[in-house]
């Protein structure tokens, strides 16, 4: 997943990473290494890996001005029109009660509109998470033409595959499956309909050099913001201050 996400960031200038996003954070740092340091990465909640000095609002102001090229969002539910739900499962008429309550929308309802390349990600690829229609729209995948919207969904990366999103058709298209994953397995695990080319490529994996980088420098960088993730994934703590 980290390699697949990093590949989607090649050639960009400034990528920001938000809350609860250790895998995109790792991918952004891998992409930065691949760019020879040209890619600027801002990690929210990290003093050392953030370019912001004006608090949380600076990220959003920056994005509103078009200064951020890519961002990552997930959702308890994601549907085939790239609508995302970070609020809860259940009938919206019952709000605020919910059968299952998710944390909340974070910055999604705004960033999905103003960041040109939003990459959706989900660790659990199942009919429970990738649904025909979300129960609550935290942020819509597409908008009518009169709505100011320079940004939107670009791709969806899961534990099984990479989908690209066609904004004009409001549909996902299978772009690649991860090594060892059959296209039928993707179809069976996906609750929404999507397009599929005749031949589906395999997601390229990071080479040995990139893997080594992930397990050392990037692991320490990520441990600064997500200590539990870094300890579990790579058995590593933050770099000394």
């Amino acid at each position, binding site marked *: 997943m980290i390699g697949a996400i990093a590949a989607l960031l090649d050639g960009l200038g400034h990528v920001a990473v938000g*809350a*609860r996003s250790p895998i995109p954070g790792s991918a952004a740092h891998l992409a930065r290494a691949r760019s020879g340091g040209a890619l600027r990465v801002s990690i929210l*909640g990290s*003093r050392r890996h953030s370019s912001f*000095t*004006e*608090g*949380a*609002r*600076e990220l*959003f102001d920056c994005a*509103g001005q078009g200064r951020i090229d890519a961002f990552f969002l997930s959702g308890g539910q994601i549907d085939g029109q790239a609508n995302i739900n*970070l*609020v*809860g499962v259940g009938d*919206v008429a019952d*709000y*605020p*009660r*919910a*059968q299952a*309550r*998710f*944390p*909340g*929308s*974070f*910055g*999604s*309802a*705004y*960033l*999905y*509109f*103003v960041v040109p390349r939003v990459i959706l990600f989900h660790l659990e690829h199942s009919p429970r998470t990738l649904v025909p229609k979300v129960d*609550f*729209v*935290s*942020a*819509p995948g597409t*908008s009518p033409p*009169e*709505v*100011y919207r320079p940004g939107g969904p670009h791709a969806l990366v899961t534990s099984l595959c990479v989908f690209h999103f066609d904004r004009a058709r409001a549909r996902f298209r299978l772009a690649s499956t991860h090594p060892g994953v059959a296209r039928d397995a993707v179809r069976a695990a996906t609750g929404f309909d999507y397009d599929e080319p005749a031949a589906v490529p395999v997601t390229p994996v990071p080479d040995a050099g990139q893997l080594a980088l992930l397990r050392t420098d990037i692991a320490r960088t990520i441990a600064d913001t*997500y*200590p*539990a*993730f870094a300890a579990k994934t790579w058995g590593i703590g933050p770099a000394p201050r």
Partner: protein
Amino acid sequence: MAATTSTPDFVAVETLAARIPNGARIALPADYSGCAMTMVRALMRRGVRDLHVVSVPQGGFQVDMLIGAGCVARVEAAAVTLGEYGLAPRFTAAIRSGEIDMWDSTCPALLAGLQAAEKGVPFMALRGILGSDLLRVRPDWKVIDNPLAESGVKDPIVILPAIRPDVALFHALKADAKGNVWVGVQRELMMMAHASKTALVTVEKIEDGDFLRDPELAAGTIPSLYISAIAQARNGAWPIGLDNAYPADAKALADYAAAAATAEGFARWRDAMARDAVHA
């Protein structure tokens, strides 16, 4: 709780807690920026009721603990989560049971509402949000046609009411003897203080002198005019960390997350906390 123009009062933690009335709309920072945890425990001990918590812009341990202790009537937040420690269990249970009211938001909308209050204007406009169900559950958010758009061009835009909390509550590294509080780059704290009717602050230490006369400190300092009272609380952010001072206590946070998974577990955690004078 009128705005103050003189030097803030320097008081004890319990006295500070007594200044937050039942039903207050109270702004609390996110877990990464200056949480007054000693005060949260003091409020739980006091049994404050019906708080309307404004999480700036998202809530975590503070909100979950206050909900568990029955102190909260409503949460206004872009999200409530314990982050790496999982879902906020008391928040999640309270939503499921209908025990608390929820005003879901999105981070920049909450920040924009506070910015409107900083300026003393009734609303702020923000891009995005159109087509989100947040507009359905937040009837106080309105959609207008951009009145400044070129003629004939339709440009719908969301406006958000000013958010003016009764009190901002947070913890910082230090205050000076005049009651100015240094928060460094934790600018949300400054914004909270500006937007709220008043601010109550705990600090690790109180130093002589005047931070506003020190060019190294002045830009990161909240002037005393926004602050009505300050209490010293060593390790006042524990078990959450404090920038430039100490890291989070991962074990204590994990223990809380595990205990709070059930109402009974939360009650045991709360009793143990009340007995533990070190962390009072």
